[in-house]
């Protein structure tokens, strides 16, 4: 089968290297018999290949040989240090990298930790004082400690107001009973306060007791005829 010059040249590399299939090889040989240009081309490629094989090796410089021996020695020492374990080598490398990375952060991190400890130490004292029980300094009739003896109070009017001033410790600074209709019995004036005092817990805001005035309104459940 006749082939073109282009096809013949396309097969030149495989032909010269002896890697061309027998049928294609015979086609190329037949083409080269009657095509002088292609025959010259193939001859040149063959000569070029032969010439390339005669190109002498570039001798390695002594300086490079020494460098390579140093590299080999270092790498061998590394292998011996890690006992040939690839994972240990990776682990050691990452430990080293993380150490290097963390060094600049060591002083700020320590400072931050110490600051937080100092702040906590300051506030822990405040927290302990604010949670202790408050002993109310109010006159408690018929009561002991925080348990008041709640006796019925006779209200002669529709509403009786108890105004109290509470300090920051939850203690009653002052109180007064107001009776707009003037029907509250004077001898029982202290009793609403006696009832109210133990029942009012200290109010806290942001872990601190707050002070202020409060008013309690007493309403009768039923009127005695």
């Amino acid at each position, binding site marked *: 089968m006749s082939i073109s010059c282009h096809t013949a040249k396309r097969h030149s*590399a495989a032909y010269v290297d002896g890697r061309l299939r027998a049928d294609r090889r015979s086609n190329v040989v037949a083409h080269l018999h009657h095509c002088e240009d292609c025959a010259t081309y193939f001859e040149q490629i063959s000569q*070029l290949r032969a010439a390339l094989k005669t190109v002498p090796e570039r001798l390695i410089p002594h300086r490079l040989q020494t460098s*390579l021996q140093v590299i*080999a020695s270092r790498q061998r020492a590394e292998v011996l240090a890690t006992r040939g374990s690839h994972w240990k080598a990776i682990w050691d490398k990452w430990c080293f990298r993380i150490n290097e990375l963390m060094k600049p952060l060591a002083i700020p991190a320590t400072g931050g930790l110490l600051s937080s400890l100092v702040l906590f130490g300051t506030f822990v004292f405040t927290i302990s004082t604010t949670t202790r029980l408050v002993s109310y300094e109010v006159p408690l009739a018929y009561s002991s400690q925080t348990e008041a003896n709640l006796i019925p109070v006779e209200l002669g009017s529709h509403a009786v107001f108890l105004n109290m001033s509470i300090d920051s410790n939850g203690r009653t600074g002052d109180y007064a009973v107001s009776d707009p209709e003037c029907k509250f019995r004077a001898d029982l004036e202290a009793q609403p306060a006696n009832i109210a005092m133990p029942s009012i817990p200290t109010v806290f805001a942001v872990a601190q007791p707050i002070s202020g005035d409060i008013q309690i309104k007493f309403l009768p459940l039923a009127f005695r005829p």
Partner: protein
Amino acid sequence: MVLADSIVKLSITGSQSSLSEEDARLLRGLRAGIESAYEELLARYQQPVYSMVYRLLGDQNDACDVVQEVFLKVFRSVGSFQERSSLRTWIYRIAVNEAHNHRRWFSRHRKHEVAIEPENEEHRCYDITPDPGPSPFDWARNRETRALIEQALDEVSPVFRTAVVLRDIEDLSYEEIADILQVSLGTVKSRILRGRDALRRALTQRLDPGLSEAFV
């Protein structure tokens, strides 16, 4: 049962190492940190690797830098080498890749640099006057022509030059070249063909510019 046997056989075939007995022994020595194994690896591969890298880069200093990088990588990666190819193919693959990376870096960073020192004596021999003999390829057997071949190689595109160097100077098989360059056999054939053709043209042009027109 037959299917299971086939799968087992296939898996055994797939996991077979491409290493020769000698390579396997050398590899075991390297992994165990045996001094003689390191010496043997250098003795066996430092010269051919340097020579090949020099052909690919055409500069001694660059070749030295690259060869150091190559062996550093070889020693560091020897533990993770998966033995799917021969030791020589693996080392050559690293060398070709390093040379390629170096050339890329060179073209990006140093292309604007101008050499201050004049060219050395070795380069002067390239400027010889060609003899108007019957065929320029008759010159191929003498020393001057070999120098011309080296310079002509520099003019060939790096991709094709690599294929020609591996095939015609290092005398590797097509399969080994395909493994080193990580390309198909067809691509290897094509690159060798085009590389040789480019080299033929460059050489013809240098030897006899008038004659080269007839070959193109």
